[in-house]
C-alpha cells in the first residue's frame, strides 16, 4: 500500500555547507606567510579560493549524496587579511535559518567568524578542514565557551556519519505514532511518555473498539462506537488491495500453515491501520496487546496485530508491539541507521540451572545450548519480516497463525536456523532516554519457526551474558534487531544525543 505520509526513513538531514577562504589584499611574507611572490598575490588567492570551492562542491556530492542527506547550496565566506568578512556571511546564513539542520564548515574558516556562526546558530556545526589545526582550535574554543554542538570531523566518513545521526534525531522528533489502546494504562510493559517527550516523538491514541468496528464490511455509517459519524471502514479498492496482499503473501511463502481467509483478516486490519495513520497524520504504529486481547473482540474478529507490524516495518513504517513506545523509538533508530526493517522482540537470557532451562516452553531445543551453556540469549516474538537484510532484499518466509486453537492471527514465520553465523545488532533506550543499550552478536541457532504464538527468534551468545541481563533490567525487555554490526553508528548517535552508550558483545 502506498503511503502518503513522510516516513521516518524519508527524513533528510539538510546541511548548509559553508566554505571559508582567506584572500590576502597584498603580496608579502612574514611570520604567517611564505612563498613565491606570484603565489602571494590577491589574484592568486582569489583563483585558489574559487578552485577550492569548486573542488569542495564536487566532494560534497561525491561523499554525501544519498537518501539521508540533502545538500543546500554552499555559502562562500571569504575574509581579507584584515580579518574582516568580505560579504555578510552571517546575514546570508541567517536568511536561511529554519531550512537547515546542520552547518558544515570547510576550507579555511577563520576563527573570528566561525565563532559568530556557532554563537548565532544552535544547530550542530561540523568543522572539517585540511590539517586539522583550524578544526582543533575552533572546536576547542567552542567547547570551552560551552557550545557543545560543535563537532570536529577527520574523514569525510565522519561528516557523513554525523549528518546521518542528525537525520535519525530529526526522524525521531518527527515520529508521530498511532497507538491503538483499550484505555491508557501501564498495566503491562513500559509505557514511556517521558522518553517520547525528550526525543520529540508524540503519540495519539485510537480506541480498539472504534478500530474493530471499522473492520466491518460496511460504508462506515452507523458504526456502534461512532454512531453519528462516518467512520473509515475499508472501501472497495482497499478491500481489493487486501486481497492482493494476501495472495502475494501466500504465493511467496515457503510454507503456509494457515487458511487464506484467516490470513486475509490480518491483512485487512493492516490496510485499515494504514488508512487511519494517514487520516490522523501518523507515520508509525503501535498497539496494546494485553489490554486489547482481554476485551475478547480480537478473538471474535480473529485478528492479531503481528502481520500488520511486519508489513508496516517492511514498508519502512516503524511498528512496535504491545504499546511499547520505548521499543518504537528503537525501531525508528535502527530502521533509519540500517535501512533495514527491524524485528522487535522479547530479548531474554536462556538460563540453564540444575540441568533445566528456565522458560523451556519458549525455546526449541538446539545444540547451541550445549555449545554456549549459560552464554545464550534469545530474542523472540512474532513479528519478523522479509526485509531484515534490507528494503531491497527478500528473505525466505512462511505464513502461520498466532492462535493455536482457531488458527487466526497471521504471522510471518522466519527460520533463523537458515542464518547461522550472521551478525546481528539490537538496541533499546532506557525509560528516561538517557542511556542506550546495544547487543552485538551472531546467530548460532533459531527457534519457533513452526510454532504458534510468539516464540520465534535467533539464539545468540554474549560474553558477559549474566552481566548483560542485569544491565538490561535498567532498560526493559524489547529490543529492535537488524542484521549487521551497527555499533559504530549507534555509539556515534549516543554521543550526539548526549546519552550513555552501553554495549555487550559476543
Amino acid at each position, binding site marked *: 500500500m502506498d503511503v502518503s505520509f513522510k516516513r521516518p526513513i524519508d527524513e533528510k538531514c539538510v546541511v548548509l555547507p559553508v566554505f571559508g577562504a582567506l584572500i590576502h589584499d597584498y603580496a608579502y611574507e612574514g611570520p*604567517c606567510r611564505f*612563498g613565491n611572490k606570484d*603565489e602571494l598575490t590577491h589574484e592568486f*588567492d582569489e*583563483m585558489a579560493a*574559487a*578552485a577550492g570551492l569548486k573542488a569542495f562542491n564536487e566532494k560534497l556530492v561525491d561523499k554525501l549524496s544519498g537518501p539521508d542527506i540533502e545538500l543546500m547550496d554552499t555559502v562562500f565566506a571569504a575574509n581579507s587579511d584584515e580579518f574582516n568578512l568580505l560579504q555578510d556571511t552571517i546575514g546570508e546564513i541567517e536568511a536561511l535559518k529554519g531550512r537547515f539542520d546542520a552547518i558544515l564548515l570547510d576550507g*579555511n574558516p577563520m576563527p573570528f567568524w566561525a565563532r559568530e556562526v556557532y554563537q548565532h546558530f544552535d544547530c550542530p556545526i561540523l568543522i572539517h578542514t585540511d590539517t586539522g589545526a583550524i578544526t582543533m582550535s575552533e572546536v576547542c574554543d567552542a567547547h570551552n565557551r560551552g557550545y557543545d554542538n560543535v563537532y570536529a570531523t577527520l574523514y569525510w566518513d565522519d561528516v557523513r556519519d554525523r549528518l546521518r545521526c542528525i537525520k535519525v534525531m530529526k526522524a525521531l522528533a518527527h515520529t508521530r505514532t498511532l497507538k491503538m489502546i483499550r484505555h491508557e494504562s501501564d498495566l503491562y510493559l513500559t509505557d514511556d511518555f517521558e522518553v517520547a517527550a525528550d526525543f520529540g516523538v508524540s503519540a495519539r491514541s485510537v480506541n480498539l473498539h472504534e478500530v474493530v468496528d471499522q473492520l466491518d464490511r460496511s460504508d462506515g455509517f452507523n458504526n456502534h462506537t461512532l454512531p453519528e459519524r462516518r467512520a473509515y471502514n475499508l472501501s472497495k479498492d482497499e478491500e481489493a488491495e487486501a486481497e492482493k496482499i494476501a495472495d502475494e503473501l501466500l504465493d511467496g511463502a515457503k510454507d503456509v500453515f494457515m487458511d487464506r481467509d484467516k490470513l486475509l483478516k490480518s491483512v485487512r486490519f493492516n490496510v485499515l491501520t494504514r488508512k487511519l495513520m494517514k487520516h490522523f497524520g501518523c507515520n508509525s504504529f503501535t498497539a496494546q496487546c494485553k489490554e486489547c486481547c482481554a476485551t475478547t473482540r480480537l478473538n471474535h474478529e480473529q485478528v492479531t496485530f503481528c502481520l500488520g507490524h511486519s508489513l508496516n516495518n517492511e514498508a519502512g513504517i516503524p511498528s512496535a508491539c504491545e504499546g511499547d513506545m520505548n521499543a518504537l523509538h528503537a525501531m525508528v533508530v535502527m530502521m533509519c541507521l540500517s535501512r533495514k526493517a527491524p524485528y522487535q522482540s522479547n530479548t531474554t537470557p536462556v538460563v540453564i540451572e540444575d540441568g533445566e532451562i528456565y522458560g523451556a516452553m519458549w525455546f526449541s531445543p538446539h545444540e547451541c545450548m550445549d555449545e554456549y551453556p549459560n552464554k545464550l540469549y534469545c530474542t523472540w516474538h512474532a513479528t519478523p519480516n522479509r526485509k531484515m537484510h534490507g528494503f531491497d532484499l527478500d528473505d525466505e518466509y512462511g505464513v502461520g497463525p498466532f492462535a493455536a486453537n482457531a488458527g487466526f492471527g497471521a504471522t510471518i514465520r522466519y527460520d533463523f536456523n537458515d542464518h547461522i553465523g550472521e551478525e546481528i545488532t539490537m538496541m533499546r533506550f532506557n525509560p528516561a532516554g538517557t542511556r542506550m543499550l546495544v547487543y552485538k552478536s551472531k546467530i548460532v541457532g533459531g527457534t519457533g519457526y513452526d510454532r504458534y504464538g510468539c516464540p520465534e527468534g535467533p539464539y545468540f551468545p554474549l560474553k558477559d551474558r549474566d552481566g548483560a541481563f542485569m544491565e538490561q533490567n535498567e532498560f526493559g525487555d524489547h529490543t529492535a534487531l537488524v542484521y549487521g554490526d551497527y555499533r559504530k553508528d549507534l555509539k556515534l548517535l549516543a554521543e550526539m544525543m548526549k546519552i550513555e552508550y552501553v554495549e555487550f558483545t559476543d
Partner: protein
Amino acid sequence: MEYNMGPGRRDRALEHRYETAEKEAKKIAKSLNSEPHPTFDEFETAIRSYIRIRMLLEPEDELPDSLNVLGQMNLSRALGVSIPELSSIDMEAKCGGTSAVMTKKILLIMALNRDLDIYLTPEEAAETTKLSMLVERLYRLYERSRNR
C-alpha cells in the same frame, strides 16, 4: 615554486630556465597582440606554443587536454622525474594549501591574463579544466577586448 622548495634547495639553473621560458612566452604573446584580428586557429597555435614554453615542455611533447596532467608534466620536466615519481618528491609547503598542480594552473592563467590583457575570472578559471576549453574561453575574451 619547485626551484626554491626549501633552504639549501634553491635550484638556480631551474629558476633560470623559468625566467628564460617566461621571456620567450611573452614574445609569443606580444607577437599575437600585434596581429589585428587573429583567427581562432592562429590564436590557438600561439597559445599552445606559449603554454608549451612556459611549462618547459619539449616540442615533441604532446600537450594533454587535461590541465591537471599539464601541471604534472610541467613539474615532471622541471624536476627531472616521471609523473608517477612526483608523489615521492619532498615538495614545498604552501600556506594557502593549494596543491603543486593547482598552483601551476593558477599561475598559468594569471600569466595569460596579464600577457593577453584579458580577465578570466576566478570562477571561470575554476570551471576550466581542459586546455581546449581554456583556449576557447581565452579567445572569446580576447576578441571581446579587441572589439572594445
